[in-house]
Structures are given as C-alpha cells and as structure tokens.
C-alpha cells in the first residue's frame, strides 16, 4: 500500500488536495481535502439582511450569480415577496448565461486539457485533441473565449457586469429592459447558438436535443467526429469513461428557473431509477471530519466556527447529508430529474460516471440557449422589473437555486433586524463531502475507489478526469 498526495490540484475553481491509498495499481481509499477557509458565514453575522447581496456573491467568482440568486431568494422568502415577472425572467437569463458560460468553461478550459497529457500519445485521437485542447494555448480555447465573452454580454446588459453584480434583488432586477436592449439580447443568444451548433456540436441544437437514447448518441457520435462534443464522445468510447468514477448515484436537484407556475427544471431526488419528492427539512451538515466545532444538524440550527486543531479532521468542508445519506448534485442530476430522456437513459445504463456527468452538462448547454431565447421574448417591456417589500426583524428564510455544478442553498435567520445566522451549503460541499460521523465517505471519495494508477504516475490521469468531471468549485465548497 502506498499513499499519494495530489496537489496543488488545479483547473478546479479554488484549492483542492486529494490523498489516495494505492494498492496493486488501484485506488483503494481516498480523502478529499478543501484546504482553504475564509469564514463568509461568520462575516455575514450581524450584518443588515440586504448586505448579503453584496457579500454572498463574493464567495465565488465563477458561481457569483448563483450566489446572488440564492441570497435574493432567501431575502424574498423572509419578506414573503413575489418577484415581478419581468425581474424573474431577467434573473433567469442572467443565471442561465452564467451557467452556460460555466459549462463551456469547464469543458474547454478545465476538463478537456487532461486528454492532451503525454500518457495518451499513442491513442488514435491524440494529435488532433492535443492541438485542439492544449491548456491555455489550444485552438479550441481561442474559439471558445471570444464566444464566452460575447455570451457574458447578456449579463453586461441585464446586470452591469460579471462577476459580482447587485442587479438581482429579492423583488426582481434593478434594470428595466428597453426595446433596443431586447434586440441586443436576442442577438447575443443567436450568436451563442451558432457557436454551439458550429463548434461544440457540429449539428443543429434541435438534432442534438432529439437524441434520447445511448444508442442514438453513439450513432450520432460516429457522424459528428469533427465537432468538439464528437471528439469527447470518441475519447469516452476509447477510454471507457462510462465505467470511470462511478458514484452511489443518489442524485438531487433543488430545481431551477421559475416560471409563472412551476420551475422549468424540476426539483427532486433520483435513486435506483425512482424519482421522489425532495424534503429540505432532511438536509443536515456534519462537521465530524472538518476543522470546525459543533455537531451535526440542520443549517437553520448550526454554525460554522473553525477549530484548526481538531483531531481526526482533514478538511474545512462539512459533510452535508440528505435524510442521513450522501447525495450527488450537478447537471446529470438536474437533467435527469427534469425528465430529459438521454440523461435518464445514461443514468439507468451506467450510473453517474465521468461520461454521464460531462454529457449532461453539454446537453444542458443546448437546452439553456433555446430557453433563453424564449425568456427574452417573454419580457413585457412596459411593466415593472422589481417589486419591493418590508423586511421583518425576526424570521427564518431559505433561498435555493442550481448553480452550474449543482444545488445551492442559503439558510438565513434574522434576529433584531440583523443577520443572526447565515448558513450556505454549496454544490461541491455535497459532491466533495468528507466522511460523516459514521465514516460514510462523500460522492467523490467513493468515485475515486478503483481508479487505476499507471506505474510511476504521480499525477494520475484517471484521478484528474474523475475529480474534474464534477466541475468542482472549491471556493463555494468552503466559504
């Protein structure tokens, strides 16, 4: 048995260290460490409730809008305020633009460069992939970054800037859209759609979204090998990524993108092919393995306080649990629970693996751009974009949303007109959870077991793929 420490683990958002026990070329046990703590929950205590809109988004420079949305919903919940329909559409658009930008950033900048590693130089796809997805200087990133910049104009128009905006408020958004701006938004979305069709998929979005089975996807991949998604599918087939990094597969989504009556992407829990209702009173956080004091409990009733010398701890991350069990979040969970046939088919066939997690993200990218177009058309330009309410002095409130990498919740308790407690449970807190008090490891810790390590590898490629397939955001994980 040998112990391998992998760090600094880069091309994830923030700091990550992974410890592996290796025996006979396989990972037999894994510990995931989030080595940075900034204390946002402590900083928020005592603040005016509205200041959460300034502070919480600055937890994360890549999920900033998602943090805004969760904070604004917690404040709206506190005031029992219903946002203006226009503001709801604008917030959906801003969140969708961030989500889509994050999905593509993950694919092009964080995930694909690992296939350019010399360990793959004998694979038939290597030369093409190495020039296309080389980190920093690859041909693909030169196409992708300008497209990303253009997509972020959606946020420039509706929310001033990215990252870190104050435009999303409890009652909607601060910016009323005029006729010219609606057309500018439509133009950005149509250009992004063309980028997806020409570069990412090499096919119309309608055709991509019509793929409902793994057999149809495989057949499509053969015909679209020259697109970036096609390139990934060829690699996935060759390296059997549908057998890599399998988690227990209990999937959760808080649901996202509210419409007039319901969420566009439904909330729920998926386990063994069965979909059930999500009960958020069943959420708890357990600091057993974290350098944090206190015991397990619901976020309304627990604090986050450092205890750097705690014995047996190995991370700053708490272990979130749903009704006592591990849950995985992200695009595969979200799309399966939202009823997307291909996401469900993949989950049923191979479970949650590197393959499914990456495919679901790109399918969601295609779905988002189609939906964004409709939301822009839905603005009633003469109507208000923001409603206003009165904040009670004492209340418990919850704001939830889905960031690109999964479920995000803000649990807020107000006392005497100020924030008494503000607990944030972020997507990667779920996915990169450490062991809980019973010793149950989190989804990534379980996914790493069985990964093969080649002789002499100090930065094992399989481990890189598995870790990054979750699109981790470590700065959200511990905040």
């Amino acid at each position, binding site marked *: 048995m040998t112990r391998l420490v992998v760090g600094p683990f880069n091309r994830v958002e923030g700091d990550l260290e992974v410890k592996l026990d290796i025996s006979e070329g396989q990972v037999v046990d894994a510990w995931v460490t989030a080595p940075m703590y900034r204390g946002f929950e402590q900083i928020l205590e005592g603040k005016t409730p509205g200041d959460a809109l300034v502070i919480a988004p600055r937890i994360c420079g890549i999920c900033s809008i998602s943090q805004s949305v969760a904070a604004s919903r917690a404040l709206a919940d506190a005031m029992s305020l219903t946002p203006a329909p226009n503001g709801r559409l604008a917030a959906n658009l801003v969140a969708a633009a961030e989500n889509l930008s994050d999905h593509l950033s993950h694919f092009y900048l964080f995930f694909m460069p690992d296939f350019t590693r010399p360990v793959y130089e004998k694979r038939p796809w290597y030369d093409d992939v190495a020039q296309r997805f080389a980190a920093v200087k690859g041909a693909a990133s030169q196409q992708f970054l300008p497209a990303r*910049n253009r997509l972020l104009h959606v946020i420039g128009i509706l929310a001033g800037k990215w990252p870190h905006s104050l435009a999303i408020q409890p009652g909607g958004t601060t910016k009323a859209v005029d006729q010219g701006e609606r057309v500018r938004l439509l133009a950005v979305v149509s250009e992004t759609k063309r980028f997806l069709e020409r570069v990412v998929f090499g096919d119309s979005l309608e055709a991509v979204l019509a793929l409902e089975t793994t057999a149809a996807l495989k057949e499509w991949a053969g015909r679209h090998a020259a697109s970036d998604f096609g390139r990934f599918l060829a690699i996935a087939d060759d390296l059997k990524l549908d057998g890599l990094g399998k988690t227990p597969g209990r999937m959760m989504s808080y649901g996202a993108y509210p419409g007039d009556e319901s969420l566009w992407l439904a909330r729920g829990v998926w386990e063994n092919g069965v979909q059930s209702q999500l009960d958020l009173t069943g959420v708890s956080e357990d600091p057993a393995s974290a350098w944090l004091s206190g015991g397990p409990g619901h976020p309304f009733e627990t604090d986050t306080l450092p205890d750097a010398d705690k014995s047996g701890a190995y991370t700053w991350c708490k272990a979130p649990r749903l009704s006592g069990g591990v849950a995985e979040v992200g695009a595969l969970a979200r799309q399966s629970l939202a009823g997307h046939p291909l996401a469900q088919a993949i989950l049923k066939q191979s479970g949650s693996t590197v393959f499914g997690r990456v495919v679901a993200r790109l399918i969601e990218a295609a779905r988002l751009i189609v939906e964004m177009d409709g939301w822009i058309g839905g603005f009633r330009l003469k109507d208000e974009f923001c409603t206003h309410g009165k904040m009670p002095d004492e209340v418990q409130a919850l704001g939830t949303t889905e960031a690109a990498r999964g479920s995000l919740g803000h649990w807020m308790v107000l006392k005497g007109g100020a924030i008494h407690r503000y607990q944030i449970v972020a997507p990667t807190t779920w996915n990169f959870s450490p062991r809980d008090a019973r010793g149950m490891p989190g989804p990534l810790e379980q996914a790493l077991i069985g990964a093969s390590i080649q002789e002499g590898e100090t930065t094992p490629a399989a481990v890189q793929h598995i870790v990054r397939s979750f699109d981790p955001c470590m700065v959200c994980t511990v905040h």
Partner: protein
Amino acid sequence: MSKAPLNVLWLQAGSCGGCTMSLLSEGAEGLAVDFETFGLNLLWHPALSLESGGEALEVLNRVASGKTQLDILCVEGSVLRGPNGSGRFQMMSGTGRSMASWVKELAGLSQYTVAVGTCSSYGGIPAGGGNPTDACGLMYNGDRPGGLLGDGYRSKAGLPVINVSGCAPHPGWIFEVLVSLARDEFGLEDLDIFARPRLFADHLAHHGCARNEFYEYKASASVLSERGCLMEKLGCKATQASGDCNLRVWNGGGTCTNAGYTCIACTSPGFEKAKNFQETPTVGGLPVGLPVDMPKAWFVALAALSKSATPERVKKNARSSHITVPPAKGRVKS
C-alpha cells in the same frame, strides 16, 4: 517585439477566483493570443495550466530556487494569516506550507508584484465583519499600510506592490498593467497614493455615469430599480470611488450604476467595512460621504438650488423604472 517575454506566475490566495474569471474576458481572440503578442509568458496559473500536482510543484520549485526567473508575480485573493499567525486557513495543497509563506517567499524574488483585485490589495471582503481569518492585503490592512509584506516592501525592480483593486477588477485594468510592465513603461509615477494604477484610478466611478443629469438636479431614486440618482438615498459612492468604470464599460456595455444599482466603492481600501451598502448614511439629512473635493456648504447650497430648478421631466423619470417623459415633447402624427 525584440525583448524576451516576461515570466508571469499567478497564485490564488484567499480568493473567489473572480479576478481570473474577469481577466478571461480580455482579448478578441482569447487571452493567450494577447499575452503572446505583448510579451507575457504564463509560467503557471492555478485555473488554466495543464500542470497539476507534482508537475505544478516542479514549476513552483524552479521559480523558488531561482532556476526560472520570476518577472511578474500576480496574487489574487486575501492573504489569510490566521489562525494565530499560522496561515493554516489556507495551505497550498500538496506542499504542507501555508499560502502566506509561499507568497512571501516568491514576492522576494519577483521583479514586479501585482495584487490583482481588492482582496490581495487591501484585504477585501474576507477582511470584513470580524475578519475571522486575519485576512489582509499584500501591503495593506484595509487602508492602513502593513499587510503580509509590510510597508517597506519593494519588488526587485524597486516598486511597491501594484494594487489593481476592484471586486472584480475590469479585465482591461489587469491586462493594461501587465502589458505596460512588459513594455517597460510603468513606474512609481503611474501609481496613486494607495498604489493603484492611475490608468483607472485617476477617474471617479461617477465620470460618465448615465444618471448624471439626475445627479446634477439631485433628482433621486427612492428604491433600487428607479432611474434617478442613487447617491442621496441608496448608498452610491461613485462620486468618491476611484475607477473609470463608467467610461470603459463592462461585458459589452454594462456598468453598475447603469444597471440600476449602487457603486459600493469596491476599488477602495476598506470598502468591506461598510454597513448597509444599499442605503446612504446621513447626518441631519446630509449624506455622510460627499463628492470628492466638494465642501459641505457648497453641496448644501447646490443641492437646494438644483432641487428647486429640477425640470418636471427629470423629476418624474427619477422616480420611475422606465422613461415616462422623453426630452422631445409631444407625439408624432398618426
């Protein structure tokens, strides 16, 4: 370009990663092309480079041992000195050493040290509230000199840390400073009193604000989403905050105030200490923070005069989310 490219090493201390996310919006053909064009060679970046784990450590160790020359050290994020000065709130993974000690060591080797964002400049949001992690900037604790490296720090080229503040900074601010360094065209005279590049800090965020007519007449919004000036009631600090934010726009045309929300002075040291960001503190009905260089009596007199002279159009539009009265009156014939 005949000069050898400058080696740039980027570290993320107690950061949200947003400064990097902002910088990625630079360049019509992507950042890599612009870096190459202007003689900047990225040695390693935690969010972008291929090298991970042991490979990344090799790059860092080559720099630390002097085998690779370090021309520009970019640090993003607050330095977390706690608990009890140990720096254990952020350990550089895989090294068993605190990020604070890495930054301190490498800053001793760099020709230039650039603090990217308000966190590494002055401490930023992590230094807010009770500052639970003892967060600081490279040469500042808020607006007080000090920080990780101390007031006396000078990089090998003889400059203090260059504070490209902003939360997050404009991609152009970061890029233009790095390119000016590569072109050997950046010196002490290009920094303001808080060591911010004057290329953005010579302006006030107020300059170019589309709400200026409302400001002139003190026609104020009473709630966010109204079109009026945000200074009197809603906490806007643009008349006091450094930055060319409204002159060079963000993400294809946006700015904070044009999008309807207040300037929170995110380029200023100590901005995180504000309470109730979206409300203007007043004493005797007067805003506590007055526009830079404006005497109080002058402000009172001007405000009274301009309020008495406010046109009906400006008054009405200030309290509406949409323009209700256009400048040209009447309607086109049907």
